[in-house]
């Protein structure tokens, strides 16, 4: 029977992080981009847990709790920003939001 080795968890976390990063880079919808950020955060969370298991310490779990708290706040603020942007610019397409240049 196959046991769950820590390296497998690391591989999975890396895949999830990579999907999130890739999605963040290529998707144009701001909402989707926000979700991708969440994906990346969760990938990191998973790696924290994996390292925690490797080192037999609870520090990683602690960090995960922090990250989840901050992620909740972040998504709340992020969604607020997206709505504000949509109200002013009538779009959630990141290609059309280039006001950073000015």
């Amino acid at each position, binding site marked *: 029977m196959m046991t769950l080795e820590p390296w497998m968890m690391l591989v999975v976390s890396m895949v999830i992080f990579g999907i999130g*990063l890739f999605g*963040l*880079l*290529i998707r*144009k919808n701001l909402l989707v981009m926000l979700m991708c950020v969440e994906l990346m955060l969760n990938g990191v969370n998973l790696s924290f847990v994996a390292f925690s298991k490797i080192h037999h310490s609870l520090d990683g779990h602690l960090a995960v709790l922090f990250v989840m708290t901050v992620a909740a706040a972040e998504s709340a603020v992020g969604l607020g920003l997206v709505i504000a942007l949509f109200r002013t610019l009538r779009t959630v397409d*990141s*290609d059309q*939001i*280039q*006001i*950073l*240049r*000015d």
Partner: protein
Amino acid sequence: MIISLLVFLPLLGFSLTAFYHFSCSSRKKEPTVAVGGFLATGAMVASFCVSIVAWFKLRSAGFGDASIEESLFSWMKVGGLQVDFGFRFDRLSAVFTLVITGVGSLIHLYSIGYMENDGSARYFAYLNLFCFMMLNLVLGSSLPQVFLGWEGVGLASYLLIGFWSQEMGNVAAAQKAFIMNRIGDLGLLFAMFLGFKFAGTLDLAQLSAFAFRPDVATIFGLLIFLACTGKSAQIPLFTWLPDAMAGPTPVSALIHAATMVTSGIYLLGRLNPVIAQSPVVMSVIGAIGAATALMAAITACFQTDIKKVLAYSTISQLGFMFVACGVGAAETGVFHVMTHAFFKALLFLGAGSVIHALSGTQDIFKMGGLRRVLPWTFWTFTVGWAAILGLPPFSGFFSKDGILHETLVASHGNPVLFGILAFSAFLTAFYMTRLYVLVFTGDSRVSEEAKKHIHESPLVMVIPLVVLSIASLVGGWFGAPVRFEETHAAPAHGVSEAVIMVVSVGLALAGAYIAYRKYSSNVRMELSKDPFRIDEFYLSFFGNGVKKASSMVGRFLEDGLFQKMLQASGVAVDLGGNLFKTVQTGSAQGYLLMMVLALIGLVCGLIFGVPGYGNF
């Protein structure tokens, strides 16, 4: 600490007067001449009293090589260079100190009267500053300290020439004096470098005792002499002195006749043993001195401004002193410095009294007949006139005669020098008598406007005149105040002093008689002329040269090079901006991509190392 006391008293006076001036200005009160004059004159008189005490102290030590030395603190210590800030009071310094503080006190006193209407406490602060710097110059124990005084008197001279700075001409004259002196100062600086390099010290006593290599001694002497030509107004750097007459007349008397301009003679006297090592330097000094004496005397005959005549006369007399130094009789030169300080200060103050009486008129052809209205000025001026002519028993007779005699008998003496100086003495008698006759005798040519205010000067101005005329009378009776060693070779020619005496007095009387015949009656107006036009020559040769060079530099360097360089830097920035502008797209995802790529690059660098740098 007696020497330090006499040096720092004028500095104290300067500080007090300046403090008074500023405290008045801050309270919106006009600082009065009386208070400033009292403070400054008090400081100078106190300094003079201390000088006399010091003189007697030196006398009880037996003169000769005796000196009072005071070292205050170590001034600079760099590598092998060790310079102490201190004073050395020996016989040469003593003579100069007494002249500076004595004549200085009188001129301070005189200034209270002369500057009463258009002076301020500032003026007296400057005068005190000048005296402090001048005392530093003649009492400093090392060459850098002399240099400090040298520059300090230059500064004070600049401030005082341009004292009435409302007029552009005065400011220009002040700047001219300052800049021309800088040329000479360069010589002193280089002489210092040379002295340190070869003698390893800048202490004056050690420096003058040092035996330089002959070629070094020549260069050193020439550099020192260059400095002296600047400060003492000799060819080629003399043209600032006539212009310096723009300053108040007491300033001309103190700085540009009695003291500052003689500091060249002091320096030559102080470094006499080194100067005497090189026959070349001696001949140059003699030749330049004689040429200056003659040229200035000729120019003085064509001047119409009373102060300009006296200024050229000063240049000419300084030439006499330099000849004395050049023929190897520096002590006679110093003797003439002393007597000249008395009678030339007297003449300048007398001229000041005349100008004061005539509400500012300086043209001698607009004077005349002043004998009756200015009796005190007239009689004291007569003494000064007799002294500069060299009539016995006035002081000028002894020193001028001494110099004429030395040109024949001293070790570097030369009959040609004697001839030039004798002719200059003849011209001196001519132009001084011309001045004297035009100002004091004959009919009055004073303008009606000036006639209304004509008046004899107040007591504070008359007292210095009387004291100085007594000094001009008796100043020469005790012979040269300083003796240097080994300057007295056996007389080369068997000319007795009596013959010289007869010749010089005869020449003086002849010059005076010619001038009297020409100017005592039927006076025709003359215009001021400068027969040599050295000033214009400098202006066209150096002035225009500098202007041309400047415009060339302006065209090629400024427009051609610097402008282009500046433009190039602008263009480079512009190009760079355009290049990097393309990166700033405003797309958040683009930025993110760059961040990710950079991060990947960084991580790769961490893991695999960077070519040329190795691992981080």
